[in-house]
């Protein structure tokens, strides 16, 4: 017995190495499942405050850009608002519950963002105090950015669209045929559009937007523009590459969207045993 213990003791650094590697791999696996809660990540108070200080300094230099992006978005929204504004009328019609407000929007700032790994994440400066919940969609005026994964009191961490684990229900704007956007882990400007049947007419230059099927994003938020269409290895599907419309390296201010009816829809889907993609 003693000799076994001595033998193990002589191997202690190797055993520690194996133990820590197994632990690390366990952490990688747990962290990379898009649904599972992460153990620790950059949303905890200390990490969040360090990253926020860094971004406070760094973002100061891009305020002009951020301002002009906000102005553009504001102008767009104002023109839309003008169309929707009620014309004063003597009659009053109670709105149907089908027109009930479905999506709720919030604003936040990215305080940390990565683009160079296979599984990229981003940290936002708002948390559960500000009403951020896991599962909310993140986008900016350019297009889709990602989805909130976990939330602390003051910060939240989202999975970037630049994450091979994230799939996004998307469609061609021209003919509404839908597919799934998934990043291929290569560079931050391109992604793939999967599962588009080969009979669909897809042309270079077509716009890809969100479908609204997934209940995370409203319909019609831009994702990208088709850059190449080829016959895939699987003859049933097309092999489509898209240029992402969001410039992830310069994204600072983002909008978060929450579907108010997601609980109802989720329980309905559960009843019908439908598994959802994003």
């Amino acid at each position, binding site marked *: 017995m003693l000799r076994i213990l001595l033998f193990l003791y002589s191997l*202690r*650094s*190797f055993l*520690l*190495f194996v133990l*820590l*590697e197994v*632990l*690390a*791999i*366990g*952490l*990688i*696996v*747990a*962290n990379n499942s898009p649904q599972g809660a*992460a*153990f*620790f*990540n*950059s949303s*905890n108070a200390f*990490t969040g405050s*360090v*990253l926020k200080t*860094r971004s406070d300094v760094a973002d100061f230099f891009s305020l002009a850009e951020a301002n002009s992006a906000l102005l553009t978005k504001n102008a767009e929204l104002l023109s839309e608002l003008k169309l929707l504004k009620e014309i004063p009328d003597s009659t009053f019609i109670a709105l149907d519950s089908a027109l009930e407000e479905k999506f709720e929007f919030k604003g936040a700032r990215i305080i*940390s*963002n*990565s*683009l*160079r*790994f*296979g*599984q*990229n*994440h*981003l*940290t936002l400066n708002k948390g559960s105090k500000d009403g951020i919940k896991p599962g909310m969609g993140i986008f900016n005026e350019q297009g889709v950015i990602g989805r909130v994964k976990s939330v602390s009191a003051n910060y939240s*961490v989202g999975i970037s669209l630049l994450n*091979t684990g994230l799939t996004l229900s998307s469609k061609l704007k021209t003919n509404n045929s839908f597919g799934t956007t998934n990043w*291929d*882990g*290569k*560079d931050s400007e391109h992604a793939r559009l999967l599962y588009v049947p080969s009979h669909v007419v897809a042309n270079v230059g077509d716009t890809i937007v969100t479908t609204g099927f997934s209940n995370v994003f409203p319909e019609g938020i831009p994702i990208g523009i088709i850059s190449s269409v080829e016959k895939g290895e699987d003859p049933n599907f097309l092999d489509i590459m898209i240029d992402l419309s969001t410039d992830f*390296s310069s994204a600072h201010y983002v909008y978060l969207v929450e579907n108010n009816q997601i609980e109802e829809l989720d329980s309905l889907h559960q009843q019908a045993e439908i598994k959802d993609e994003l």
Partner: protein
Amino acid sequence: MNFRNLIYFVFLVTILALVQILFLKNLALFGVAYCFIYIIAILSFPVNIRHFPLILISFGIGLIIDVFYDTLGLNASAATLLAFLRPYWIKSISPNGGYDESTKPTLHDMGIGWFISYSLPLAFAFSLAFFIADQWGTGGLFGVFNKSLFSSIFTVLMAIIVQLLFFKRKRGIQ
């Protein structure tokens, strides 16, 4: 390792980790050359540091970087591998007559030729472990090798520059 050394290494690890976290997160030259500057700290611990604490310390440093990067486990696993391999590699490239008790495997103590042959394979092993775990399931072994090779070269270059600029030079006979 005496008290002065301890303070020195705590300081070194903190500075390098801060630089890594604050400035080098999205830096990748030509999309392939990443810079893992914090591994200089792991590489420059004294030669006679025991294996067991070295592995533990490296795992801890890697984990701290991971928490800030949201890449939980990636840096930790690669840094653990680096720390595990380090003593074997140091032993196998030991110069005639072995090492002094207090030798640090740094540029100024050992010279540039030895330092490159010491750090480049270790940095390559680190990068390889990092990118295999990072790109797992996305295919493309070529991409992994490409990134590992250029990242290790870039990291070693940065290590040499950092040591030339900031590390204390050995003066006369110690």
